């Protein structure tokens, strides 16, 4: 992107008016949140798959706000997960290694699954730790010998 700045082209974003889709998204969130409150599973909305423009995103950010939790995950690029001011509504932003947004998802859940440690990774970690401890105790034993 920085190399483009050297070229005398100033790309002006066309002024976009809200498409009205933001409100449709908000109503879908409302429905899912209602289900979650009733003890049913919530759901997720892929914002990238919807025709939303910058104005629509601004409306969504404005309406949902910022909540108490923010998490950052480093896995194949950064992954930011924020709880919005509406508890139970989480905003996921996936970045590429270069820092560009690749996916944006709104998840309605008590806790996003991806933040939980995964079983496969836990067992990997377990064996890694075991290895490390084994190595460390082995070295100790050797020193004892």
């Amino acid at each position, binding site marked *: *992107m920085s190399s*483009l700045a050297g070229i*005398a*082209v*100033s*790309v*002006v*974003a*066309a*002024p*976009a008016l809200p498409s009205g889709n933001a409100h449709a998204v908000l109503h879908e969130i409302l429905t899912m949140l209602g289900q979650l409150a009733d003890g049913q599973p919530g*759901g*997720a*909305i*892929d914002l*990238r*798959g919807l025709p939303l423009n910058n104005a629509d995103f601004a409306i969504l950010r404005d309406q949902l706000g910022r909540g108490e939790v923010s998490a950052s*995950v480093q*896995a*194949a*690029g950064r*992954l930011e997960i924020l709880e919005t001011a509406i508890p139970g509504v989480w905003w*996921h932003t*996936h970045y*590429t*290694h*270069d820092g*560009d947004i*690749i*996916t944006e*998802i709104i*998840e309605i859940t008590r806790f996003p*699954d*991806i933040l939980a*440690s*995964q*079983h*496969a*990774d836990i067992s*990997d970690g377990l064996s890694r730790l075991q290895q490390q401890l084994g190595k460390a105790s082995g070295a100790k034993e050797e020193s004892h010998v």
Partner: protein
Amino acid sequence: MSETLEQNLRSHGISRRAFLKYCTTLASLLALPPSAATAMAAALGKAQRPSVIWLSFQECTGCTESLTRSNSPSLEDLIFNSISLDYHETLQAAAGTAAEQARENAMREHYGKYILLVDGSIPLGHGGAYSTVAGVSNLDTLKKVAAGAAAVVAVGTCSSFGGLPMANPNPTGAVAVSDIITDKPVINVPGCPPIPVVITGMVAHFLTFGALPETDLHKRPKVFYGDTIHDRCYRRPFYDQGKFARTFDDEGARNGWCLYELGCKGPITYNSCATLKWNEGTSFPIQSGHGCLGCSEPGFWDKGSFYQPLSASTWHDIPALAIAAGAGVAVGAVAAVVSRHRQDSTSQSPTNGEK
């Protein structure tokens, strides 16, 4: 070769959480609901590491370049690295007989299960003599390898629609893969070159669901070719307002106005460039100030100047029109003379009406 995809990834130090993130992105790309990501992760995780054979015919290697040019790990090289690319003339280390042997082996071992990717068109002229590998014509190779393939992906416009080799007067008699392979699922991923994630997306979709995704009338996956460049173009509001760049260096061009007048084919070109973009989402042609060439559409190479506006005629033979006008005058003159003659002949007829 019994290693699953997940095992393979884990051995490369990719965490389950990272894999889940990939699957979420993949689901989003394939226009699947976010909840499908978990199911995809499960299916892909269990999938056998697939065998892929890549055949190159009349092509420029641009498609391979597109796929391999990512300079940081990304979804496409994740998939690409996890597959068993058993034959690819450009990328493989083996050469000569050993290379051909590798392909024979892969075909035998995975007969009916491997995925065939093809770039380049197939020349039919002179018995296929225009392009041969190891003394075998592209046509024969394609037929033989496709026979054992589970699915065929035509990568790039040449294999999808014929491409530049097919351009008038098509000296080699080039045809597309789907012109030859009619008894197998063939999916076209056109573009010159195609967007890399679309190529891997097709492989991922096949691995996850065991089938190729839904296609449009040109056998292109609808998820990537469902909208026109124009539909998703960030300059679309300028088009809607009637603001157009007239030259490549005028005020309109500097302001990033619509490139319709400079020949942009975005309105009739179905592809995802405007949303996925290129070079890890950096830009795409229109963003860099040049109109879309329409490279993912059949026949784009023979549709007149790239800089001819879409609404302008592609055939305006002014002298022929002048001849038509002249002929009209001549015919009209004859008609007038005939009428005059008929008037004269009536004036001599008996006027017995008055008695």
